């Protein structure tokens, strides 16, 4: 079993899964019917991607692992998602800024992974990129609309950006596994993605009349399994069925 590959797939998978979970919490609670439907559709896309990753991770891991054990039966430290995606749905501004900061990273990431030497990762990326370009359209348009909207919507968006900015840097802090994957030609080059990311977010935030905070993002740890206090609650809900009724299926 190639443990590095397994870990790398998990990292890709967990970002999609935990963000997908956060968005799924909004089902029936979106600020309007259209945004509710959009956010849950995005959640569904992210969960679809997660499923492909988890099936592949289970295959790489071998033994008696399957997609469900990979997705549901790990301990908190074994989840490798960045802290950004586990941040709560404080209000619609936080939801949109979190989504945009992730989409602006996710899109160029998948663009690179399309050429991964690992055929399965390349296939999942080529599939996902079509969906994620719709996510990016949705989140960037809402950033502009609310940032350059009313005084109140502008203020709320700026507040969300000021807060979430602390978490935006971790996406580009290369972990040991990411370094390994890059050198093997399996993973992405985060520096190249970072350049595209900066161009993208600077243009969108400028149009939205929002100011990118001057401080350097400092929150990190998720990639190494060190999570914020929110993660335990997420996993409690996510894992409840499998922990209560081990091996249950629908």
């Amino acid at each position: 079993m190639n443990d590095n590959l397994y870990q790398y797939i998990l990292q890709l998978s967990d970002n999609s899964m935990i963000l997908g979970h956060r968005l799924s919490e909004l089902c029936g609670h979106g600020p309007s019917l259209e945004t509710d439907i959009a956010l849950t559709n995005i959640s569904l896309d992210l969960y679809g991607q997660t499923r492909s990753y988890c099936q592949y991770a289970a295959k790489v891991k071998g033994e008696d692992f399957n997609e469900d054990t990979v997705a549901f039966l790990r301990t908190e430290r074994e989840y490798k998602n960045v802290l950004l995606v586990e941040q709560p749905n404080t209000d619609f501004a936080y939801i949109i800024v979190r989504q945009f900061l992730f989409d602006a990273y996710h899109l160029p990431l998948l663009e690179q992974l399309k050429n991964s030497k690992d055929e399965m990762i390349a296939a999942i990326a080529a599939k996902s990129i079509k969906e994620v370009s719709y996510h990016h359209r949705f989140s960037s348009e809402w950033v502009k609309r609310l940032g350059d909207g009313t005084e109140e919507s502008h203020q709320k968006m700026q507040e969300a950006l000021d807060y979430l900015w602390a978490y935006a840097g971790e996406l580009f802090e290369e972990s040991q596994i990411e370094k390994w994957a890059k050198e093997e030609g399996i993973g992405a080059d985060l520096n190249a993605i970072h350049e595209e990311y900066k161009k993208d977010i600077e243009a969108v935030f400028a149009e939205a009349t929002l100011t990118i905070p001057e401080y350097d993002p400092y929150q990190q740890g998720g990639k190494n399994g060190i999570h914020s206090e929110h993660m335990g609650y997420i996993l409690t809900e996510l894992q409840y069925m499998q922990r209560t009724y081990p091996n249950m299926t629908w």
Partner: protein
Amino acid sequence: MIKIDNQIQEILESVSDPEIPVLSILDMGIVKDAQQKADHVLITITPTYSGCPAMDVIEEDIVNAFKSHNIEAKVDTVLSPPWTTEWISENGKQKLEKYGIAPPMNETMDKKALLDGERIIKCPQCGSTNTEMVSQFGSTPCKALFKCQDCLEPFDYLKCI
């Protein structure tokens, strides 16, 4: 052999997309391959969207459709190359429109309609292009929600991917 191929085709045509029941899975372009093996047929399908909840149902429906002809079928799912709306057959596009879903345009037109709000998507009820996008995301991942300014009916548009 030809007889078997025709029969496979016929059986596959009887399996519909659970979310758009007027389209067969052949119309949708999600069947990538059908092979006669020694003791079963092997059908290879590809999902429209990664999270398409219909895939498991489609797989089951294929197996059952063949079973009713006393043929054992196995289903394999592949992701690559990724499905595109261009694989929907012409026949399928016409059926979509009749069913009340505006069929996908090409990618450039799609962007104009969804991003720049250009009024080019035709209302499947009255044929007017005086239509407006309500939301990029609709009742399923593959659809955007529109409304017609002339007949005032809301309708789905199957967006390009």
